[in-house]
């Protein structure tokens, strides 16, 4: 364990308990070094982003212009807007090692010579906010912040704000809609100034990278590309769900069967929501795939935000695709037409399949719609919907077809996702608030 080290039994919420496991020692060491040296160590460690994109952290930091090259201040924004279905690791970090996150922020601030850190935490995380705020107040009182201003900014319920440019829009006080890239945030981010954006887990790993030393860290996990550990989010039909910090490179089977105790109730594994709801689902024949970026990508999967959600044989895959589709339809910000319209079409088509009123050609039409979303929007929200839906249609086509032949769901009411209500449906019910028109 690296990220959660020391917090195996008890959370390390206060400063003293964090100091007792070597907390803030690396900050002191980093501050004694040249900023460039810290970035060089991050590059050598090959630490990569844990938010889903897996971009090399050190390289990203190296894109930020140094103060002599830019007339504006540079910013750090930590993405704590954890909202990907099945992801619950950043929450665990904030509850168990809040000071390690703060230490990581301060080291990163030194590395890119920034004096402003914003932690954008999802609005629903109330207890996590309280714990992090208490830790920040304590660190500030202890003089650890130096000349750095650190603000915890609370979101207000919008999945899209986890997308980096939407997050910046939201933080600037606008509707949380993505912007076109380039310019990338490293050049033109918050307030049009250079901005480093990192996920909570990535930033929290930084102190441990420095503690181990970059060369040593680079040997852990599944080098050379997937170094270090990962906080896997195991959930669904599994005996022991939870956040498990394991080195990159363990197999999916090991995580589910050995660590998680396997599928309970004598059921069998049907599919895995792998990486998050934004990626293709895994079928049982690929369970021996190692959980590292390269092994997964060879089989067409993604490590994403470390999600491993197990679906047993009671799951109707049409209902699964429909419910995921409803999520994306609900969360689409509406800016780009292929996403705004495409996510809605997919829901309509999947509902017709579930009801048995679609035809075989509609399955191809659904795949065609997926094709027409992917790569055609400012951000990947629509792509995410298209990828998981297309994987369900392709890999479970027989099951989709059975709905059409059966004239409805062949599971009857026995699917574990039967009757699952989606929040998007209650928009139809909500009364129009006539009296608040300004």
């Amino acid at each position: 364990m690296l990220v959660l080290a020391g917090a195996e039994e008890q959370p390390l919420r206060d400063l003293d308990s964090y100091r007792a496991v070597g907390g803030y020692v690396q900050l002191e060491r980093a501050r004694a070094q040249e900023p460039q040296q810290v970035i060089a160590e991050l590059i050598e460690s090959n630490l990569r982003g844990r938010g889903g994109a897996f971009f090399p952290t050190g390289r990203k930091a190296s894109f930020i212009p140094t103060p002599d090259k830019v007339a504006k201040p540079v910013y750090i924004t930590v993405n704590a807007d954890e909202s990907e279905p099945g992801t619950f690791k950043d929450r665990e970090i904030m509850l168990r090692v809040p000071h390690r996150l703060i230490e990581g922020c301060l080291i990163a601030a030194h590395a890119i010579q920034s004096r402003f850190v914003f932690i954008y935490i999802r609005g629903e995380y109330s207890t996590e906010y309280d714990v992090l705020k208490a830790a920040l107040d304590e660190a500030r009182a202890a003089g650890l912040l130096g000349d750095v201003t650190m603000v915890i900014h609370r979101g207000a319920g919008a999945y899209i704000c986890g997308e980096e440019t939407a997050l910046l829009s939201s933080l600037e006080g606008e509707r949380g809609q993505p912007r076109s890239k380039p310019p990338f945030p490293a050049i033109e981010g918050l307030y049009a100034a250079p901005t480093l954006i990192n996920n909570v887990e990535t930033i929290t790993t930084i102190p441990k990278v420095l503690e181990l030393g970059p060369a040593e860290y680079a040997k852990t996990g599944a080098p050379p590309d997937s170094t270090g550990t990962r906080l896997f989010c195991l959930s669904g039909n599994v005996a022991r769900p939870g956040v498990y910090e394991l080195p990159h490179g363990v197999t999916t089977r090991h995580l589910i069967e050995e660590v998680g105790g396997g599928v309970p109730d004598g059921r069998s594994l049907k599919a895995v929501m792998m990486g998050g709801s934004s990626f293709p689902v895994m079928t049982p024949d690929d369970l021996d795939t190692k959980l590292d970026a390269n092994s997964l990508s060879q089989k067409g999967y993604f490590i994403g935000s470390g999600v491993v959600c197990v679906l047993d044989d009671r799951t109707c895959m049409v209902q699964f695709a429909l419910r995921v589709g409803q999520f994306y339809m609900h969360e689409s910000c509406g800016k780009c037409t292929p996403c705004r319209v495409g996510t809605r079409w997919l829901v309509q088509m999947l509902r017709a399949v579930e009801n048995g009123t679609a035809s075989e050609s509609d399955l191809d039409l659904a795949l065609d719609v997926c094709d027409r979303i992917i790569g055609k929007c400012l951000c990947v929200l629509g792509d995410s919907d298209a990828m998981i839906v297309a994987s369900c249609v392709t890999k479970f086509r027989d099951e989709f077809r059975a709905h059409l032949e059966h004239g409805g769901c062949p599971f009857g009411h026995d699917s574990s996702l039967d009757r699952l209500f989606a929040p998007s449906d209650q928009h139809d019910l909500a009364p129009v608030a006539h009296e608040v028109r300004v």
Partner: protein
Amino acid sequence: MTLVDEIRKVAKQYPESKSAILPALRLAQQQYGRLSREALEQVGEALDLTPAYCMSVASFYDMLHLEPVGTHAVEVCTNVCCGLVNAQAVLEAFELELGVAPGETTGDGEITLRAVECLGGCSTPTIVAVDHRYRQSVTPDDVPAIVRELRSGG
């Protein structure tokens, strides 16, 4: 401290005051119960924005309410991870206990029931946020006690 003063104080944390609109809307909602016209005007005054702009931002976010909502909020996660282990039964138990559909408020204006997207508590399904605090591993059997607790002013 008045709401306008309180918002202006929060805004000082940011290089540009417009950044404070989400905390400002949150504060206004706490005070007014929802983002009424008056609440939006207060936010606008504090941050030098038009009420219409404040409304356009507020309408983007699920946790901000332009329409009247209950004093208490019961929010049941119905995304797939909770759904795989029967979140629908928990939601239905609340519907039965409260006599409202998801998205609706009880007749006495006390409790709003909502289905919500993944709350990030997938290892302890079903997650129910009761007045924005997570209850973990909620089953249909827990529902009457939660409602009783809210009804008794908990």
